[in-house]
């Protein structure tokens, strides 16, 4: 064999590996399904419960549903490529809030998703679900997605350290209270009151939403450089920069876990989905963590904000939109199922009636027996509207850039000329978003 194979040992070895592995893979092919509906979701947190409930739906409607778990980042690129080539487009897709609006570009009749406005009103969902959550999936007055969640924000805190330091959480009503205590507890480079990103927009935007601001107005014009935007930035930057900083960030994943365990961060911005990540990722802090409502900007203003989200859309390629709609309702409206799913995800569904399910008011040992579902549900009606535009991803990047620039300026110059700088920077970045949007010929 060696004598007659002209490419040498290594190539022969590869040929061998190729044939053997190919044969094995040929004998164990991926199960090919002939499905009536193809449904993509992007996270295992959704995927696992759906695999349990979809067989019921299949039985009820005598159909086949092919549920596929597609990687978060791949879901956009692949959907984009699929829709561009008009091929292999799934019937239903769950998409993260940041990526969905990119698909709302172009003339309304050519948006990749079916306009659900009519169906939503017919089914009475407009009143049954948290209305604020339709806003991120609405373009030019038309709703293209069903909201999966509400994602109210609270603060998770190290209750053991707070107790040690004699902090009375019930006295923390406003951010001013919070910052005062934060200044006392923060030890530079060793312990910070709060984890806040100083390099991307996720936390800054939550603060902006809390104040009623946002990236876009309902008509889709970029507005993050308005007064609310400026005020939020002026307030936010000194928290994460300068001599009196009480917050910062060091990374994510296990690094963050370690930092929380070490008491490097005392509080975390904590929407409902993150409370689950914390339970899972920082199991050793069980019984040492608690939740408190987000401090308000002024007394009597809202004690929450929002971070993240998912929509369920039916694509224009769907051959059977009615069946797809039925599946959407099956997944998003079944109170019992939602109650059960909550236990595994901690995610508050957009359907208000579901919150009365017993699982939401169950005390959670991890959170010192706080009934965290009820706590989130209490804040959910206050969740601010966030309007969107196809350029939301760019807007987020630009706000992040503005944040970095302002942090740098503040570190170098302090309050000196800070306000004009913030104003100019935000305007510059927002102008870039507007310039991009102006290219849009539709």
């Amino acid at each position, binding site marked *: 064999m060696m004598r007659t194979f*002209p*490419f040498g040992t*290594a190539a022969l070895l*590869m040929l061998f590996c190729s044939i053997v592995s190919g044969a094995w893979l040929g004998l164990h*092919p991926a199960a090919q399904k002939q499905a009536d509906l193809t449904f993509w979701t992007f996270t295992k947190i959704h995927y696992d419960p759906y695999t349990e409930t979809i067989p019921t739906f299949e039985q009820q409607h005598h159909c086949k549903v092919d549920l596929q778990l597609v990687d978060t980042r791949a879901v956009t690129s692949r959907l984009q*490529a699929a829709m561009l080539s008009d*091929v292999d487009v799934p019937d239903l897709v769950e998409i993260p809030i940041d990526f969905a609006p990119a698909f709302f570009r172009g003339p309304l009749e050519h948006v990749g998703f079916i306009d659900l406005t009519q169906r939503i009103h017919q089914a009475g969902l407009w009143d049954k679900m948290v209305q604020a959550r339709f806003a991120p999936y609405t373009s030019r007055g038309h709703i293209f997605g069903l909201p999966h969640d509400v994602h109210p924000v609270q603060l998770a805190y190290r209750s053991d350290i707070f107790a040690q330091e004699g902090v009375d959480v019930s006295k923390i009503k406003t951010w001013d209270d919070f910052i005062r205590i934060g200044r006392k507890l923060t030890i530079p480079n060793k312990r910070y009151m709060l984890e806040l990103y100083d390099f991307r927009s996720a936390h800054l935007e939550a603060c902006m939403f809390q104040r009623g601001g946002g990236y876009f107005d309902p008509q889709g014009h970029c507005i993050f450089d308005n007064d609310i935007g400026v005020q939020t930035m002026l307030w936010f930057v000194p928290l994460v920069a300068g001599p009196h900083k009480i917050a910062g960030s060091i990374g994510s*994943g*296990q690094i963050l876990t370690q930092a929380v365990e070490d008491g490097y961060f005392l509080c975390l911005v904590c929407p409902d989905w993150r409370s689950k990540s914390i339970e899972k990722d920082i199991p050793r802090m069980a019984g040492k963590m608690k939740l408190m409502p987000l401090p308000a900007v002024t007394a009597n203003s809202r004690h929450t904000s929002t971070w993240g989200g998912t929509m369920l859309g039916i694509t224009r390629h769907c051959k059977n939109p009615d069946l797809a709609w039925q599946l959407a309702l099956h997944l998003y409206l079944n109170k019992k199922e939602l109650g059960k799913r909550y236990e595994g995800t901690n995610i508050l569904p957009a359907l208000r009636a579901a919150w009365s399910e017993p699982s939401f008011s169950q005390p959670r040992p991890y959170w010192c027996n706080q009934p965290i579902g009820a706590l989130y549900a209490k804040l959910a009606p206050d969740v601010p509207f966030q309007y969107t535009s196809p350029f939301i991803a760019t807007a987020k990047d630009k706000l992040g850039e503005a944040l970095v620039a302002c942090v740098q300026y503040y570190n170098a110059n302090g309050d000196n000329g800070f306000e004009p700088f913030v104003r100019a920077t935000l305007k510059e970045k927002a102008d870039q978003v507007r310039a991009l949007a102006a290219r849009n010929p539709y």
Partner: protein
Amino acid sequence: MKEPTSPTLPAVYSVNAQDAAIKEPSITSGQQHPSDTPRQDSGRVGEGLLRVLVYVLLCLAAVLMLMPLVWLVAATTKNSDDLLHYTFFATRPVSLFGHNFALLKPFSVDNFKALFAAIPFGRYMLNSVFISCTTVIIQLFFSSLAGFALAKYEFRGKKLIILLMLATVMIPTQVTMAPLYELIYRMGLVNTYPGLLIPSAVSVFGIFLFRQAILQVPDELLHAARIDGCSEFRIYRDIVMPVSRPMVGAFCLISFMGAWNNFLWPQIILHSNEHFTLPIGLNTLVGPQSQLYGALMAGTFLSILPVIVLFLLLQKEFIAGLTSGAVKG
């Protein structure tokens, strides 16, 4: 005679280099170099110091280069509690004769367990092996065949082909991604192995490499074979390829690494978990909320192992072939 602007390596470098490389590399050039002969005494001390300095620098560089890899190996052996507590391997204090020593903790296989629990790593590995090996074989055959034709034949359209290849080789692959996806779908190959294999079946780079190598095969060899009645394909199989063996080795490794590390195209073309290759599969573990650093590191470790093994297998051919190809451009 050599070409006037020919680089410094001998024209039949590929053949010579292989013979040379089979010997222990550390002594290959040692016998020939002039400065190996003893110097005057005045330089002795300086020479000795210089040698020490060279070794120090080399060792320092080696330590810096290897440290992340050692860290990676160490990370795979630690359980999740120890992962961030110990910079390298986890140790435990041991008291012996009143002195405290640090002793290695027994290695933990937790990370590997976590890895295999989190993702079907075995399947990913098999997919990667299949995709990469098949890609290499197909590329090797097509590229060497075409490289042979372009090196040793005159035929109509040859210049056009070379021009076409030249024009396309510099274009970043991302440019073609959307049209290519559509094409693959129309062929019904989305989410299939062929959908991954066919677009990468030919390597323009490989053709250039083989063309350069085969240009250096003496024409007289081919003439002689033809007079003996060899068919053109036999000439390719029995003369050209065996003579270009170092290039084949080099190409195998380069092509394998390319396929093994391919990231963006599989990400777009593959839908189902059963088809994922290692980079795509492992990347599903990376995320803002990832808690699986240990598993991730274990996966990374296992993912780079085949390449390292292949390199050790091909090292000599690889370096000889790579460099002779490089010198020719």
